[in-house]
């Protein structure tokens, strides 16, 4: 039965259902329980933004608060997963990748290949991304491109509550290391989410709407930005296809290429850094693979090449907006 619940509730539910169904699923991170052991468990934090609230209470033996030492506990999640567990490690903010990246970059991602196919490391890392809260340069980044860059990792960037639940369920049961990026601005957005357990496959894009003029590719929070722009453009008779790839690795290239073959125009909206990022990745592969279908220069709508600023007016100017997407689409129509 579907109800409207919040994105963060959908994530909580996905974890809970997997933990109920599968004893090997464990959860670890900073404050993922919170106040565990103090006698106030019922009130426990459940992570810095409350996403895992209640899980410690239900599974006290499988939810672990960790000391602030991401390399050790993210590495432990990787190690436990190589030893038969399905560990979910929470990296509080993706901005913190720099203190623990090796355990994903050189360990989890490469075990299977280096060991000749003999390792299985079904670890899932959940992490918060995104700007928009004046959290400044070290708490607002969306570095999924860095992870997408790494063969051996799978990267998931859900854009709504329904997808979040289904994709996280899949990630947890997936036998490869998965990184699951949760945009903080989506946490309180609501969507129809079935109560039951369900899964959404990785590598299958969601086509939100089909249009004939321009293909817009957008991820995570940017999907809503793209949708808003498309609505506006429709008033002027410009019809857009909106593709939410849902996962950057594996990537549903087919969905993108076949759409561009129809529309001949591509705009990618991306919140990650503009250089060597996801937007460039999509534009480059499209240019290489379906060049002859392109009627106009593909456009990238990304933040400028600067750190995320603190002041609200600067941060607003920093982020891709519907207006910028509109302008980019119009440019492809000239």
């Amino acid at each position, binding site marked *: 039965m579907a109800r409207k619940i919040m994105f963060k509730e959908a994530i909580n539910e996905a974890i809970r259902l997997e933990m109920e169904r599968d004893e090997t699923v464990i959860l670890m991170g*900073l*404050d993922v*329980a*919170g*106040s*565990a*052991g*103090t006698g*106030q468990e019922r*009130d*426990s*934090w459940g992570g*810095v933004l409350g996403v895992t609230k209640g899980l410690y209470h239900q599974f006290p033996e499988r939810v672990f*608060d*960790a*000391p*602030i*030492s991401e*390399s*050790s506990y993210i590495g432990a999640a990787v190690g436990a997963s190589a030893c038969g567990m399905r560990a979910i490690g929470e990296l509080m903010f993706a*901005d*913190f990748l*720099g*203190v623990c990246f090796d355990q994903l970059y050189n360990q989890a991602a490469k075990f299977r290949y280096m060991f000749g196919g003999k390792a299985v490391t079904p670890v899932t890392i959940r992490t918060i991304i995104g700007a928009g*809260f*004046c*959290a*400044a*340069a*070290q*708490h607002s980044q969306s570095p999924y491109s860095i992870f997408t860059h790494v063969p051996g990792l799978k990267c998931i960037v859900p854009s709504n509550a329904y997808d979040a639940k289904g994709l996280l369920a899949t990630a947890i049961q997936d036998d490869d290391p998965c990184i699951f990026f949760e945009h903080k601005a989506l946490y309180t957005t609501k969507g129809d989410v079935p109560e039951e357990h369900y899964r959404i496959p990785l590598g299958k894009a969601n086509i939100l709407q089909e249009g004939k003029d321009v293909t817009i590719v957008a991820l995570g929070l940017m999907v809503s930005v793209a949708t808003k722009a498309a609505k506006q453009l429709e008033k002027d008779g410009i019809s857009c296809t909106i593709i939410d790839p849902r996962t950057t690795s594996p990537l549903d290239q087919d969905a993108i290429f076949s759409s561009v073959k129809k529309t001949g125009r591509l705009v990618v909206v991306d919140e990650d850094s503009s250089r060597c990022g996801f937007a460039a990745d999509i534009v480059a592969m499209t240019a290489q693979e379906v060049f002859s279908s392109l009627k106009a220069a593909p456009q990238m709508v990304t933040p*400028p*090449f*600067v*750190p995320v*600023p*603190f*002041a*609200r*007016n*600067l941060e607003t*100017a*920093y982020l891709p907006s519907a207006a910028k997407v509109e302008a980019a689409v119009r440019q492809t129509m000239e």
Partner: protein
Amino acid sequence: MSGQMSKEALLKAYRKMRQIREFEERIHSEFATGEIPGFVHLYAGEEAVAVGFCEHLSNKDRISSTHRGHGHCIAKGVDLMGMMAEIYGRKTGTCGGKGGSMHIADLDVGMLGANGIVGAGPPLACGAGLASKLRKDGSVSVVFFGDGAANQGTNFESMNLAVTWDLPVIFVLENNGYAESTSPKYTARVGTENISDRARGFGMPAITVDGNDFFAVYEAAGEAIERARKGGGPSFVECKTLRYYGHFEGDAQTYRPKGEVKDARANNDPLKRFAAAVVAADLIDSVELEKIDKEVRAQVDSAVTAAKAAPDPDPESLFTDVYVSY
């Protein structure tokens, strides 16, 4: 009580502590109005630590700080008006509104920056200490960090590096008993009685002091800093203290025992203890302290008024200051 402190020094220290307290209390109430953006972590309750150390330092000495950095900034002499404007995200802020509460820095006064990354400060402080050592100017660097941060690999590595390279770095642990919501009874659990024991294992002098007793901190700080200035290498000082507010503004603090803060405010407040001590010792008249309180209140008040009235950063500033040249 530190016998060596002159009356002026005592008054200065008290003023600093009061500035921090007033600054933080005021931000707490202003934050509630919704006008202050971002994540804000308040230092109220821990004033004796920042001031107890920084009163030994000059602009040539450096400190590195944490997400809970306002107190360190004020103690090190960062302009309070600029700080408030920064926290409001204004053009007139210390960082032009581009850093915010978690990133206030002022290299001119030796403040290497608050830091949003837990454990990022210790390596930077080692670098500052190395620069001091190479310059042979007797300057030192002091790194503040919390009981949570004390578990971060960067912190252990840096203690080790400071010992190996014999650096003039003082590691100051602000043990307020919480890392966000996780209590020492569980997560922060260390295998030894005090976190300083763990530090001693790295082979440097390490002690634990009452971090709410300004004079205890001041004395321990003086010793460690003096040792470092004379080429005696790093030290570790654990200061046991308490934060009066939540981890960040907006924290419901469900993890805290009821009455913990109320009790501390009543019986273990660093400013009250300082005041009681200096008055009891007949060093300072309570009227003088009240005068400072009033002056500071006016100062913070005008900082808030100015911050609110200040303009937003110029739109073009989004694109500047990424590189010196590019």
